[in-house]
């Protein structure tokens, strides 16, 4: 019973926050609505016994990624457009609404049965979710872990190269 109440709260707030993120006019308000969405999604993770992902969601998503977005928003100091939706948005929403309802209908029909894995909730709760994630990550998923590390290094280098000021680039060219 308690689970259902919490699930209903987190689910409804996530959907409302997502709708506000898409529909609000001012970009900073959209960023704050996105923060609300991220925190409520992290609440859903707690309901699903994924405490480590809850911490990662709060620290990385709400703490780092969202601050990066707000930083760029403040840096650019955007003026709010008079027409902030794309001009043809009624033509997008028209087919999207019945299509979405049909997809939801199909999803709620499915039984979602599948082969059970080797980590039931009781086994995870024994040593904690962080322990289970760590054991799995550094045994079966070590290659993916390394690939993500290389990917992040590439992303950092790419972002620095892209955002370097043109003046600094001219200086570097002059020195050559």
């Amino acid at each position: 019973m308690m689970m259902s109440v919490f699930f209903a709260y987190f689910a409804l707030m996530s959907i409302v926050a997502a709708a506000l993120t898409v529909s609000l006019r001012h970009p900073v308000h959209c960023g704050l609505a996105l923060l609300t969405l991220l925190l409520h999604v992290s609440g859903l993770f707690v309901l699903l016994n994924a405490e480590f992902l809850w911490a990662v969601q709060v620290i990385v998503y709400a703490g780092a990624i969202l601050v990066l977005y707000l930083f760029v928003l403040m840096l650019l100091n955007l003026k709010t457009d008079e027409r902030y939706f794309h001009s043809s948005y009624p033509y997008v929403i028209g087919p999207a609404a019945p299509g979405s309802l049909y997809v939801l209908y199909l999803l709620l029909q499915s039984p979602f049965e599948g082969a059970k894995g080797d980590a039931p909730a009781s086994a995870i709760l024994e040593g904690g979710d962080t322990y289970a994630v760590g054991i799995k990550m550094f045994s079966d998923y070590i290659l993916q872990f390394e690939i993500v590390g290389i990917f992040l290094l590439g992303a950092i280098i790419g972002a620095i190269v892209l955002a370097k000021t043109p003046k600094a680039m001219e200086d570097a060219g002059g020195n050559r």
Partner: protein
Amino acid sequence: MVPLSAYVAVSAILFMTGLLGVLIRRNFIIVLMSVEIMMNAANINLVAFSHYLESMSGQLVALFNIAIAAGEAAVGLAIIVVVFRGKISTNVDEINLLKW
């Protein structure tokens, strides 16, 4: 007990909202935020299936997904800064240099 299809439905609604945002918003930064909404919807789906099918793999993939979202945000915002420096606009309709 909340059924798995409830989580899948929430995830689907969030994904469609994000997709709608990508399609109809004209501000580049809001478009990137909508992509984040879609990634969160995928994460809910992964963690929900991980819980109900009693496997850790879903949580691991969700974790990698968050790392990739961080990289995507950094590179996307760097691209926005570069475009804004040249054109003083983040309107996706005016960024059409590579359009044929």
